[in-house]
Protein backbone atom coordinates (compact mmCIF):
# COMPACT_ATOMS: atom_id res chain seq x y z
CA UNK A 1 0.00 0.00 0.00
CA UNK A 2 1.16 3.55 -0.73
CA UNK A 3 0.50 6.40 1.68
CA UNK A 4 0.95 10.06 0.65
CA UNK A 5 1.41 12.87 3.19
CA UNK A 6 1.31 16.65 2.67
CA UNK A 7 4.42 17.78 4.54
CA UNK A 8 6.51 20.87 5.24
CA UNK A 9 9.75 19.13 4.22
CA UNK A 10 11.38 15.79 3.44
CA UNK A 11 11.62 12.77 5.76
CA UNK A 12 9.76 11.02 8.55
CA UNK A 13 10.45 13.73 11.10
CA UNK A 14 9.18 16.62 8.99
CA UNK A 15 6.04 18.35 10.28
CA UNK A 16 2.77 17.69 8.47
CA UNK A 17 1.56 20.56 6.26
CA UNK A 18 -1.99 21.63 7.00
CA UNK A 19 -2.43 22.75 3.39
CA UNK A 20 -2.93 20.23 0.63
CA UNK A 21 -2.81 21.98 -2.76
CA UNK A 22 -0.38 24.60 -1.45
CA UNK A 23 1.68 22.20 0.69
CA UNK A 24 5.48 22.53 0.55
CA UNK A 25 5.60 19.02 -0.80
CA UNK A 26 4.46 15.43 -0.52
CA UNK A 27 6.07 12.40 1.10
CA UNK A 28 5.15 9.01 -0.32
CA UNK A 29 5.63 5.89 1.79
CA UNK A 30 5.56 2.59 -0.03
CA UNK A 31 4.84 -0.07 2.59
CA UNK A 32 5.81 -3.00 0.34
CA UNK A 33 9.29 -1.72 -0.45
CA UNK A 34 9.67 0.38 2.75
CA UNK A 35 10.71 3.32 0.54
CA UNK A 36 10.15 6.99 1.37
CA UNK A 37 10.18 9.47 -1.53
CA UNK A 38 9.79 13.30 -1.56
CA UNK A 39 7.86 15.23 -4.21
CA UNK A 40 8.38 18.96 -3.98
CA UNK A 41 5.36 21.17 -4.67
CA UNK A 42 7.30 24.43 -5.05
CA UNK A 43 6.30 25.01 -8.64
CA UNK A 44 2.60 24.15 -8.34
CA UNK A 45 1.93 25.97 -5.08
CA UNK A 46 2.66 29.30 -6.79
CA UNK A 47 -0.22 28.95 -9.25
CA UNK A 48 -3.20 31.25 -8.79
CA UNK A 49 -5.83 28.60 -9.31
CA UNK A 50 -6.15 24.85 -9.52
CA UNK A 51 -3.41 23.85 -7.08
CA UNK A 52 -5.67 21.21 -5.54
CA UNK A 53 -6.21 19.77 -9.02
CA UNK A 54 -2.45 19.55 -9.58
CA UNK A 55 -1.94 17.84 -6.23
CA UNK A 56 -4.76 15.40 -6.96
CA UNK A 57 -3.08 14.54 -10.27
CA UNK A 58 0.02 13.64 -8.29
CA UNK A 59 -2.09 11.31 -6.13
CA UNK A 60 -3.24 9.59 -9.33
CA UNK A 61 0.23 9.51 -10.87
CA UNK A 62 1.85 8.03 -7.75
CA UNK A 63 -1.07 5.63 -7.36
CA UNK A 64 -1.44 6.41 -3.66
CA UNK A 65 -3.99 4.33 -1.75
CA UNK A 66 -4.21 6.71 1.21
CA UNK A 67 -3.73 10.49 1.32
CA UNK A 68 -3.15 12.23 4.66
CA UNK A 69 -3.10 15.99 5.16
CA UNK A 70 -2.71 18.24 8.20
CA UNK A 71 -5.79 20.28 7.35
CA UNK A 72 -8.60 19.73 4.87
CA UNK A 73 -8.86 18.83 1.21
CA UNK A 74 -10.44 21.48 -1.00
CA UNK A 75 -13.62 20.64 -2.93
CA UNK A 76 -11.88 20.15 -6.29
CA UNK A 77 -9.06 18.04 -4.86
CA UNK A 78 -11.41 15.82 -2.90
CA UNK A 79 -13.75 15.26 -5.86
CA UNK A 80 -10.75 14.11 -7.92
CA UNK A 81 -9.10 11.99 -5.23
CA UNK A 82 -12.43 10.28 -4.75
CA UNK A 83 -12.30 9.27 -8.42
CA UNK A 84 -8.85 7.70 -7.91
CA UNK A 85 -10.32 5.59 -5.13
CA UNK A 86 -7.74 6.71 -2.53
CA UNK A 87 -8.78 7.03 1.10
CA UNK A 88 -8.63 10.62 2.44
CA UNK A 89 -7.58 11.46 6.01
CA UNK A 90 -7.79 15.05 7.27
CA UNK A 91 -6.76 17.09 10.33
CA UNK A 92 -3.49 15.30 11.10
CA UNK A 93 -1.90 18.56 12.20
CA UNK A 94 0.71 19.44 14.82
CA UNK A 95 2.57 16.19 14.31
CA UNK A 96 5.36 14.71 12.25
CA UNK A 97 4.84 12.55 9.18
CA UNK A 98 5.87 9.53 11.27
CA UNK A 99 3.33 10.37 13.98
CA UNK A 100 0.62 10.90 11.37
CA UNK A 101 1.41 7.51 9.85
CA UNK A 102 1.34 5.79 13.25
CA UNK A 103 -1.88 7.52 14.20
CA UNK A 104 -3.46 6.38 10.95
CA UNK A 105 -2.24 2.80 11.46
CA UNK A 106 -3.46 2.64 15.05
CA UNK A 107 -6.98 3.55 13.95
CA UNK A 108 -7.16 0.88 11.29
Amino acid at each position, binding site marked *: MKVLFSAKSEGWNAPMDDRFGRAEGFTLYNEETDELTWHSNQENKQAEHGVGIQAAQLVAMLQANVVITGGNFGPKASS*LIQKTGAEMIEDMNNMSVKQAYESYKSKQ
Partner: protein
Amino acid sequence: MQIAIASGKGGTGKTTLSVNLSTFLAEKFKGTDQKVVLTDLDVEEPNSGLFLDGNLVHKEEQFRRVPEWDEEACTLCKRCAKICEFNALAFLGISVVVFPELCHSCYACSDLCPENALPMKYSRMGDLKHISLSENLHFVESRLDIGIEQATPLINQTKQYTKGHFDNSWISILDAPPGTSCPVMEAVKDSDLVILVTEPTPFGLHDLKLAVETMEELNKKTLVVINKHGIGNSDVEQYCAEKNIPVIGRIPHLRKAAEVYSKGELMFQQIPEIRTEMENIYNGITSWIKA
Protein backbone atom coordinates in the same frame (compact mmCIF):
# COMPACT_ATOMS: atom_id res chain seq x y z
CA MET B 1 -16.25 57.96 -28.32
CA GLN B 2 -16.20 55.39 -25.55
CA ILE B 3 -15.97 56.50 -21.91
CA ALA B 4 -15.60 54.01 -19.06
CA ILE B 5 -16.70 54.92 -15.56
CA ALA B 6 -14.65 52.96 -13.03
CA SER B 7 -13.34 53.09 -9.48
CA GLY B 8 -11.08 51.07 -7.25
CA LYS B 9 -13.48 51.06 -4.33
CA GLY B 10 -16.99 49.70 -4.64
CA GLY B 11 -19.92 51.87 -3.64
CA THR B 12 -18.29 55.16 -4.58
CA GLY B 13 -20.87 56.17 -7.17
CA LYS B 14 -20.04 54.59 -10.53
CA THR B 15 -23.66 53.76 -11.21
CA THR B 16 -24.88 57.10 -9.85
CA LEU B 17 -22.55 58.92 -12.23
CA SER B 18 -23.27 56.57 -15.15
CA VAL B 19 -27.05 56.89 -15.08
CA ASN B 20 -27.10 60.61 -14.24
CA LEU B 21 -24.47 61.57 -16.81
CA SER B 22 -25.99 59.42 -19.58
CA THR B 23 -29.48 60.82 -19.05
CA PHE B 24 -28.15 64.35 -18.62
CA LEU B 25 -26.23 64.13 -21.91
CA ALA B 26 -29.21 62.63 -23.76
CA GLU B 27 -31.41 65.51 -22.57
CA LYS B 28 -28.73 68.02 -23.50
CA PHE B 29 -28.32 66.54 -26.98
CA LYS B 30 -32.06 66.42 -27.67
CA GLY B 31 -32.77 67.81 -31.13
CA THR B 32 -29.15 67.30 -32.25
CA ASP B 33 -27.73 64.21 -33.95
CA GLN B 34 -25.77 63.18 -30.85
CA LYS B 35 -26.93 60.07 -29.04
CA VAL B 36 -25.94 58.17 -25.90
CA VAL B 37 -25.75 54.46 -25.11
CA LEU B 38 -25.05 53.30 -21.56
CA THR B 39 -23.78 49.74 -21.03
CA ASP B 40 -23.77 48.21 -17.55
CA LEU B 41 -20.69 45.97 -17.46
CA ASP B 42 -20.92 45.27 -13.74
CA VAL B 43 -22.40 41.93 -14.76
CA GLU B 44 -22.11 40.37 -11.31
CA GLU B 45 -24.45 42.98 -9.88
CA PRO B 46 -25.88 45.20 -12.61
CA ASN B 47 -27.93 47.99 -11.06
CA SER B 48 -27.98 50.86 -13.57
CA GLY B 49 -31.27 49.42 -14.77
CA LEU B 50 -32.89 50.24 -11.42
CA PHE B 51 -32.75 53.92 -12.40
CA LEU B 52 -33.80 53.58 -16.03
CA ASP B 53 -37.23 52.74 -17.42
CA GLY B 54 -37.73 51.97 -21.08
CA ASN B 55 -38.88 49.53 -23.72
CA LEU B 56 -37.18 46.21 -24.23
CA VAL B 57 -35.67 46.15 -27.73
CA HIS B 58 -33.94 42.81 -27.53
CA LYS B 59 -33.04 40.07 -25.08
CA GLU B 60 -30.62 37.22 -25.66
CA GLU B 61 -28.89 34.44 -23.78
CA GLN B 62 -25.12 34.66 -23.57
CA PHE B 63 -22.88 31.62 -23.90
CA ARG B 64 -19.21 30.84 -23.80
CA ARG B 65 -17.53 27.63 -24.88
CA VAL B 66 -15.75 25.13 -22.65
CA PRO B 67 -14.25 21.73 -23.50
CA GLU B 68 -16.10 18.51 -22.82
CA TRP B 69 -14.17 15.27 -22.46
CA ASP B 70 -14.98 12.56 -25.00
CA GLU B 71 -13.99 9.36 -23.24
CA GLU B 72 -14.31 7.22 -26.38
CA ALA B 73 -11.94 9.34 -28.46
CA CYS B 74 -9.36 10.01 -25.72
CA THR B 75 -6.10 8.04 -25.73
CA LEU B 76 -4.99 9.40 -22.33
CA CYS B 77 -1.91 11.13 -23.73
CA LYS B 78 -2.07 13.84 -21.02
CA ARG B 79 -1.24 16.64 -23.45
CA CYS B 80 -4.36 18.65 -22.54
CA ALA B 81 -3.62 18.76 -18.82
CA LYS B 82 -0.02 19.77 -19.53
CA ILE B 83 -0.96 22.68 -21.82
CA CYS B 84 -3.74 24.18 -19.71
CA GLU B 85 -2.42 27.44 -18.21
CA PHE B 86 -5.26 27.57 -15.72
CA ASN B 87 -5.17 24.03 -14.28
CA ALA B 88 -8.70 23.55 -15.53
CA LEU B 89 -8.08 19.97 -16.65
CA ALA B 90 -7.11 17.08 -14.41
CA PHE B 91 -5.47 13.98 -15.79
CA LEU B 92 -6.12 11.07 -13.46
CA GLY B 93 -4.37 8.29 -15.37
CA ILE B 94 -7.61 6.68 -16.50
CA SER B 95 -9.72 9.78 -17.05
CA VAL B 96 -9.67 13.51 -17.75
CA VAL B 97 -11.82 15.86 -15.65
CA VAL B 98 -12.72 19.37 -16.84
CA PHE B 99 -13.34 22.17 -14.32
CA PRO B 100 -15.36 24.69 -16.36
CA GLU B 101 -15.14 27.30 -13.58
CA LEU B 102 -11.37 27.49 -14.10
CA CYS B 103 -11.52 27.37 -17.91
CA HIS B 104 -10.70 30.63 -19.74
CA SER B 105 -12.10 29.35 -23.06
CA CYS B 106 -8.68 29.68 -24.73
CA TYR B 107 -9.23 26.55 -26.89
CA ALA B 108 -5.62 25.34 -26.39
CA CYS B 109 -6.57 21.89 -25.08
CA SER B 110 -9.29 21.46 -27.68
CA ASP B 111 -7.22 22.61 -30.66
CA LEU B 112 -4.08 20.73 -29.64
CA CYS B 113 -5.75 17.43 -28.76
CA PRO B 114 -4.54 14.98 -31.45
CA GLU B 115 -7.71 12.87 -31.08
CA ASN B 116 -10.25 15.70 -31.01
CA ALA B 117 -11.38 14.38 -27.65
CA LEU B 118 -12.10 17.81 -26.13
CA PRO B 119 -14.73 19.45 -28.37
CA MET B 120 -15.82 22.92 -27.22
CA LYS B 121 -19.44 22.96 -26.06
CA TYR B 122 -21.71 25.90 -25.30
CA SER B 123 -22.09 26.86 -21.68
CA ARG B 124 -24.58 29.50 -20.53
CA MET B 125 -23.25 32.58 -18.70
CA GLY B 126 -26.29 34.83 -18.38
CA ASP B 127 -28.70 37.17 -20.17
CA LEU B 128 -28.24 40.41 -22.10
CA LYS B 129 -30.94 43.05 -22.38
CA HIS B 130 -31.14 46.03 -24.70
CA ILE B 131 -33.56 48.77 -23.65
CA SER B 132 -34.60 51.95 -25.43
CA LEU B 133 -35.31 54.91 -23.14
CA SER B 134 -35.73 57.57 -25.79
CA GLU B 135 -34.74 58.32 -29.35
CA ASN B 136 -31.23 59.27 -28.30
CA LEU B 137 -30.73 57.17 -25.14
CA HIS B 138 -30.32 53.41 -25.12
CA PHE B 139 -29.25 51.02 -22.39
CA VAL B 140 -27.59 47.60 -22.54
CA GLU B 141 -26.97 45.34 -19.56
CA SER B 142 -25.88 41.78 -18.91
CA ARG B 143 -26.49 39.72 -15.84
CA LEU B 144 -24.22 36.81 -14.93
CA ASP B 145 -26.00 33.66 -13.73
CA ILE B 146 -25.65 32.72 -10.07
CA GLY B 147 -22.76 30.31 -9.61
CA ILE B 148 -20.80 31.40 -12.71
CA GLU B 149 -17.34 32.39 -11.50
CA GLN B 150 -15.94 34.34 -14.42
CA ALA B 151 -17.34 37.72 -15.36
CA THR B 152 -14.73 38.61 -17.98
CA PRO B 153 -16.12 36.66 -20.98
CA LEU B 154 -19.60 38.10 -20.44
CA ILE B 155 -18.20 41.64 -20.10
CA ASN B 156 -16.36 41.16 -23.37
CA GLN B 157 -19.44 39.86 -25.22
CA THR B 158 -21.63 42.64 -23.84
CA LYS B 159 -19.17 45.23 -25.14
CA GLN B 160 -19.18 43.47 -28.51
CA TYR B 161 -22.98 43.72 -28.59
CA THR B 162 -22.86 47.47 -27.94
CA LYS B 163 -20.13 47.96 -30.55
CA GLY B 164 -22.07 45.93 -33.07
CA HIS B 165 -25.33 47.81 -32.59
CA PHE B 166 -24.24 51.43 -32.08
CA ASP B 167 -21.97 53.18 -34.55
CA ASN B 168 -19.67 56.15 -33.94
CA SER B 169 -22.55 58.62 -33.85
CA TRP B 170 -23.30 57.29 -30.36
CA ILE B 171 -21.38 58.29 -27.26
CA SER B 172 -20.81 55.01 -25.46
CA ILE B 173 -20.67 55.11 -21.67
CA LEU B 174 -19.58 51.97 -19.84
CA ASP B 175 -20.44 51.38 -16.19
CA ALA B 176 -17.47 49.22 -15.14
CA PRO B 177 -17.30 46.76 -12.24
CA PRO B 178 -15.40 47.80 -9.08
CA GLY B 179 -11.85 46.79 -8.21
CA THR B 180 -8.68 46.59 -10.28
CA SER B 181 -8.65 42.99 -11.52
CA CYS B 182 -9.46 41.26 -14.83
CA PRO B 183 -13.16 42.29 -15.08
CA VAL B 184 -12.24 46.00 -14.75
CA MET B 185 -9.38 45.75 -17.23
CA GLU B 186 -11.64 43.99 -19.73
CA ALA B 187 -14.28 46.70 -19.25
CA VAL B 188 -11.95 49.67 -19.77
CA LYS B 189 -9.23 48.38 -22.08
CA ASP B 190 -10.59 49.77 -25.36
CA SER B 191 -12.10 52.99 -23.98
CA ASP B 192 -10.85 56.39 -25.11
CA LEU B 193 -11.20 57.82 -21.63
CA VAL B 194 -11.68 56.52 -18.09
CA ILE B 195 -13.48 58.52 -15.43
CA LEU B 196 -12.56 57.32 -11.95
CA VAL B 197 -15.15 57.98 -9.28
CA THR B 198 -13.89 58.30 -5.74
CA GLU B 199 -14.91 59.69 -2.40
CA PRO B 200 -12.78 62.13 -0.38
CA THR B 201 -11.92 59.69 2.42
CA PRO B 202 -8.81 57.64 3.27
CA PHE B 203 -10.56 54.53 1.86
CA GLY B 204 -11.48 56.37 -1.29
CA LEU B 205 -7.94 57.65 -1.76
CA HIS B 206 -6.34 54.27 -1.07
CA ASP B 207 -8.41 52.55 -3.76
CA LEU B 208 -8.19 55.51 -6.14
CA LYS B 209 -4.41 55.09 -6.10
CA LEU B 210 -4.77 51.41 -7.05
CA ALA B 211 -7.17 52.34 -9.85
CA VAL B 212 -4.85 55.09 -11.15
CA GLU B 213 -1.92 52.66 -11.18
CA THR B 214 -4.03 50.15 -13.11
CA MET B 215 -5.04 52.76 -15.68
CA GLU B 216 -1.41 53.90 -16.04
CA GLU B 217 -0.46 50.30 -16.76
CA LEU B 218 -3.15 50.22 -19.47
CA ASN B 219 -2.07 53.63 -20.84
CA LYS B 220 -5.50 55.11 -20.22
CA LYS B 221 -6.18 58.81 -19.94
CA THR B 222 -8.01 59.32 -16.64
CA LEU B 223 -10.18 62.06 -15.17
CA VAL B 224 -11.56 62.04 -11.64
CA VAL B 225 -15.01 62.77 -10.23
CA ILE B 226 -15.33 63.13 -6.47
CA ASN B 227 -18.61 61.87 -5.07
CA LYS B 228 -19.93 62.70 -1.59
CA HIS B 229 -17.91 65.89 -1.78
CA GLY B 230 -17.85 67.68 1.58
CA ILE B 231 -17.10 64.67 3.79
CA GLY B 232 -13.59 63.48 4.70
CA ASN B 233 -10.58 65.61 3.81
CA SER B 234 -8.73 67.16 0.87
CA ASP B 235 -6.15 64.39 0.39
CA VAL B 236 -7.82 63.17 -2.82
CA GLU B 237 -7.65 66.66 -4.35
CA GLN B 238 -4.00 66.94 -3.33
CA TYR B 239 -3.16 63.52 -4.78
CA CYS B 240 -4.88 64.37 -8.10
CA ALA B 241 -3.03 67.71 -8.27
CA GLU B 242 0.31 65.96 -7.71
CA LYS B 243 -0.53 63.35 -10.34
CA ASN B 244 -1.81 65.97 -12.78
CA ILE B 245 -5.19 64.26 -13.00
CA PRO B 246 -8.00 66.78 -13.56
CA VAL B 247 -10.89 66.63 -11.08
CA ILE B 248 -13.80 67.44 -13.39
CA GLY B 249 -16.71 67.11 -10.98
CA ARG B 250 -17.54 67.25 -7.29
CA ILE B 251 -20.94 65.73 -6.51
CA PRO B 252 -22.00 67.17 -3.15
CA HIS B 253 -22.86 64.94 -0.19
CA LEU B 254 -26.53 65.79 0.42
CA ARG B 255 -29.32 64.10 2.34
CA LYS B 256 -31.63 64.89 -0.58
CA ALA B 257 -29.28 63.00 -2.94
CA ALA B 258 -29.57 59.86 -0.81
CA GLU B 259 -33.37 60.23 -0.72
CA VAL B 260 -33.63 60.53 -4.50
CA TYR B 261 -31.21 57.62 -4.98
CA SER B 262 -33.16 55.40 -2.59
CA LYS B 263 -36.26 55.85 -4.75
CA GLY B 264 -34.36 54.88 -7.89
CA GLU B 265 -34.68 58.38 -9.34
CA LEU B 266 -32.12 60.61 -11.03
CA MET B 267 -30.41 63.18 -8.81
CA PHE B 268 -29.61 65.81 -11.43
CA GLN B 269 -33.32 66.12 -12.32
CA GLN B 270 -34.24 67.08 -8.77
CA ILE B 271 -31.15 68.71 -7.28
CA PRO B 272 -29.84 71.84 -9.04
CA GLU B 273 -26.32 71.57 -7.52
CA ILE B 274 -25.98 68.09 -9.02
CA ARG B 275 -27.21 69.28 -12.42
CA THR B 276 -24.44 71.92 -12.27
CA GLU B 277 -21.91 69.16 -11.56
CA MET B 278 -23.13 67.15 -14.59
CA GLU B 279 -22.56 70.29 -16.67
CA ASN B 280 -19.05 70.60 -15.15
CA ILE B 281 -18.31 66.96 -15.91
CA TYR B 282 -19.52 67.43 -19.51
CA ASN B 283 -17.26 70.49 -19.84
CA GLY B 284 -14.36 68.56 -18.31
CA ILE B 285 -14.79 65.80 -20.89
CA THR B 286 -15.12 68.19 -23.84
CA SER B 287 -12.05 70.19 -22.82
CA TRP B 288 -10.14 66.90 -22.60
CA ILE B 289 -11.35 66.02 -26.13
CA LYS B 290 -10.17 69.41 -27.44
CA ALA B 291 -6.79 69.03 -25.71
